[in-house]
């Protein structure tokens, strides 16, 4: 077996050093009833690299990759172009095969990257501090609800209908046995502002509210000014949590921090990371300085070494499970280190100017797509303001339309029927994302595909 260096002679010599007569001696603590005599049945035996490659490549060919067709699918995961140098750098063994930087003297590479990452995320979101990443946007959002409860000592969280329904589901699951109470809005396809429920939120906001969770741009692509909502939250002593699924939007629209948010969470996959069928992704989490000790997840901080040279360490770990055990702010241990590295490298390649250009190009492609689709009979574009994602209402149910278009090698978007099963008023809704990867030809093919399927 190519990954196992010990030879038969090594094994013999080592057993002799140990004083064991056979390998079975070393498993003598295992109860006899649970000892397996040989390899487990029903599984194949070892394979050469060539054979594994053939088998897995075969499976991969049964999927339709995004880059092989006009692609407009978003809703929490986005197809962006990632520069080749990003994937090259994250595969350097010193990054790929290192551990969490618990020994900072020999992990300054990872730690400095985390410090750069935290700074980038804090600036993008308009916050003071960011942590070293979470599992994904959905778990980061739930952690924000917990953090708001710890800060305000209140338990009612108002969740906007514009929040990704999978994020809402995850939050419902994870708060099921905590004291948190979620009050969730119901999405409506309002023309001009789909999924917007600011009025409903204000009607629910009271002195028992720990936080309001809104997504911006929301699931339906609608972009809102949250400044007044932030002021209303603060007047009641509640926190405003702003979530996002498309981090590129922060290169074009006013930051949540500027609008008055207290905690900003989101999905960072778009920068540096591929679609990967849903994971691994990258949860982003940022807040104001004053709340840093209530933050979940790892934090990297600056310090000096014994010779006075600048260095970085994991810090404020008294919040964490390996110290606090059952009193920890969160049970999280592993985060998304390598995804954060990819994000930081890509963001460094972009810089301020590159990110703004990328965001502008995304917006331009989305506007172009929306305007073209608006000319197709049977399609109504619902959004007024949007970034790179918008919602359309079709003249018939969207799910079969998506399937029919997929058969023509067009991936047209996400039907709301899939995200909200059993809600008739959403069944004709479809959310499309257009990023920088979309071409004029893609848009034309999409419009023609819709025209044919809707005819």
């Amino acid at each position, binding site marked *: 077996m190519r990954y196992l260096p010990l030879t038969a002679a090594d094994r013999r010599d080592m057993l002799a050093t140990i004083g064991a007569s056979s390998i079975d001696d070393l498993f003598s603590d295992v109860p006899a009833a649970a000892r*397996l005599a040989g390899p487990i049945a029903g599984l194949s035996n070892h394979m050469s690299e060539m054979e594994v490659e053939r088998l897995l490549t075969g499976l991969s060919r049964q999927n339709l990759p995004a880059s092989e067709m006009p692609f407009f699918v978003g809703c929490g995961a986005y197809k962006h172009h990632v520069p080749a140098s990003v994937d090259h750098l994250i595969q350097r063994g010193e*990054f790929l095969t290192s551990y969490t930087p618990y*020994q900072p003297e020999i992990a300054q590479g990872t730690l*400095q990257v985390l410090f750069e990452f935290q700074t980038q995320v804090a600036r993008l979101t308009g916050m003071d501090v960011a942590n070293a990443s979470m599992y994904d946007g959905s778990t980061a959002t739930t952690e924000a609800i917990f953090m708001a409860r710890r800060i305000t000592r209140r338990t009612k969280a108002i969740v906007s209908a514009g929040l990704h329904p999978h994020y809402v589901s995850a939050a419902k699951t994870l708060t099921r046995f905590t004291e948190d109470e979620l009050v969730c809005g119901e999405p409506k396809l309002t023309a001009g502002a789909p999924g917007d429920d600011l009025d409903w939120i204000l009607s629910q906001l009271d002195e028992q509210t720990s936080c309001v969770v809104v997504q911006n741009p929301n699931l339906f692509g609608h972009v809102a000014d949250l400044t007044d909502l932030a002021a209303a939250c603060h007047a009641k002593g509640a926190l405003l949590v702003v979530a996002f699924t498309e981090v590129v939007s922060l290169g*074009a629209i006013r930051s949540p921090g500027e609008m008055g948010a207290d905690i900003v969470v989101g999905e960072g996959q778009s920068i540096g990371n591929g679609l990967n069928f849903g*994971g*691994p992704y990258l949860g982003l989490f940022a807040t104001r300085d004053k709340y840093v000790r209530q933050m979940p997840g790892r934090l990297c901080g600056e310090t000096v070494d014994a010779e006075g040279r600048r260095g970085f360490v994991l810090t404020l770990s008294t919040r964490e499970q390996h110290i606090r055990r059952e009193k920890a702010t969160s049970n999280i241990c*592993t985060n998304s280190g390598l995804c954060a590295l990819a994000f930081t490298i890509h963001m460094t390649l972009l810089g301020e100017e*590159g990110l703004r250009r990328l965001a502008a190009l995304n917006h331009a492609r989305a506007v172009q797509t929306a305007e073209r689709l608006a000319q197709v009979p049977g399609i109504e574009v619902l959004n007024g303001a949007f970034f790179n994602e918008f919602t359309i209402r079709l003249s018939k149910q969207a799910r079969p339309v998506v399937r029919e278009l997929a058969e023509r090698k067009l991936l047209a978007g996400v039907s709301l029927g899939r995200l909200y099963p059993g809600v008739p008023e959403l069944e004709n809704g479809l959310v499309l994302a257009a990023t920088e990867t979309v071409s004029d030809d893609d848009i034309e093919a999409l419009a023609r595909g819709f025209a044919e399927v809707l005819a």
Partner: protein
Amino acid sequence: MSMNRQGRESGVGDGAAAEGFETYTGNRGLQLEEPLIFEKGAPDRFGVDLPAGPKIASRLGGLDRHKPIGLYGLSEPETVRHYTRLSRQNYAIDMGLFPLGSCTMKHNPRLNEKMARLPGFGDIHPLQPVDTVQGALALIHLVGEWLCKLTGMPGVAISPKAGAHGELCGMLAIRAAHDARGESRKLVLVPESAHGTNPATAAFCGYEVVGIPANERGRVDLEALKAKLGPDVAAVMITNPNTCGLFEPDMIEISEAVHAAGAFVYCDGANFNAIVGRVRPGDLGVDAMHINLHKTFSTPHGGGGPGSGPVVFSEALMPFAPLPFVRKTGEHFELVEEEQAHASTDHNESFGRMVAFHGQMGMFVRAAAYMLSHGADGLRQVAEDAVLNANYLLASLKDVMSAPFGDTGPCMHEALFSDDFLGGTGITTLDIAKALIDEGYHPMTMYFPLVVHGAMLVEPTETESKSTLDQFINSLRGLALLAKSGDDRRFKGAPFLAPRRRLDETAAARKPVLSWREPAQRQAAE
């Protein structure tokens, strides 16, 4: 004196000249200093060219971001150099032994990386129509099937994103199962040697944590555990092999007692590498166990994630498993989400969704490549070699270090030492760890588990050769003897030869600096 390949004499030199001067750059030969991107980059510098887009009228609703964001960019050559230079300040498995106990730092095969990047896996969207991702669902199904067969458990939840997330998944299922029976049990028993995530997870699910003591052999005290079982106990969270690197010989009796009390057995699968292919947790009476794909199945640790923590379940807990999961009907693979679960009779008790999508697909592909490469025969050899390597270390070091359970029989995949052998020297576990850095190793896990004083937990894994182990043993023996001789010069203040000397963690926590600020801003803040 050693000989180089040309046969000329070579030596290390006396180094005195080199120590005598400071360089203008702060670099020391190949040891290169590197500033932050904010100190070398600029807002208008970039390493990405983008095509011109169509001319459009903005539809951002007047919410354009006008103020500077404060990002700094670099050109591509500068970016490549910056991150390459930073990478060289890291220790990694690719460079040498990484014997971090409980973390299973084994070789990460590059085939796995190549497979995960196939467009058919890496470039598909989680919300594509399921007919366009049948191969991806087949792969998830394949990984699930291997995990079930290797553990002897009937079902698997794929979506948990890491070990602690898997623990949460298992405990949520246990809580849901009790709720479904109309029982409201309040307590979870956790051995004192457990990982910190165990009590944190139990507390998160609304349980009160009760500790179980270890016996003098480093195992769970069966009688003490039985005494604590009762109608208010929901579950026992147990790690097997445990965090002392020992197999729990009473595991079957423990499970039987727990089940008799109406509770469930949660097993922390962090140490599955020691028994994969030799013991199936299902045969030990386990009801739920997470499997760290980033440990046993060698998906890379990446400097702190991403991990992946699928959970295998017993029949009793399967109905409560989270969404989504993959179901095979004939030759077709279905992704069971909320809608399909509500419509079916067997899964409508699911406790719900834990994350946005379907788990760590990128890690599933890597784990699949790893499993298929080893096969059932190779995985069994993995456990055997991992255990052999650890016992070899234990046998070769226990006369100069102190192995608190070294006389209670063989260890599993990791060897535990305490700091007893350092008694009276003033040298600590931390000092030994830092001295190992100067020897060119990543230190072992320090001060964990908490059940022995000054713990040093050494896990070599199966991918280390005998000669690597011999060199490590030689080095650690030397350090142990030196420490015991009372000579603390190599220890106090170590490491001396790393990119940084010891870092001031107290100062970092007292006045946290968690992001870079422009020098002017920084001065104003002070």
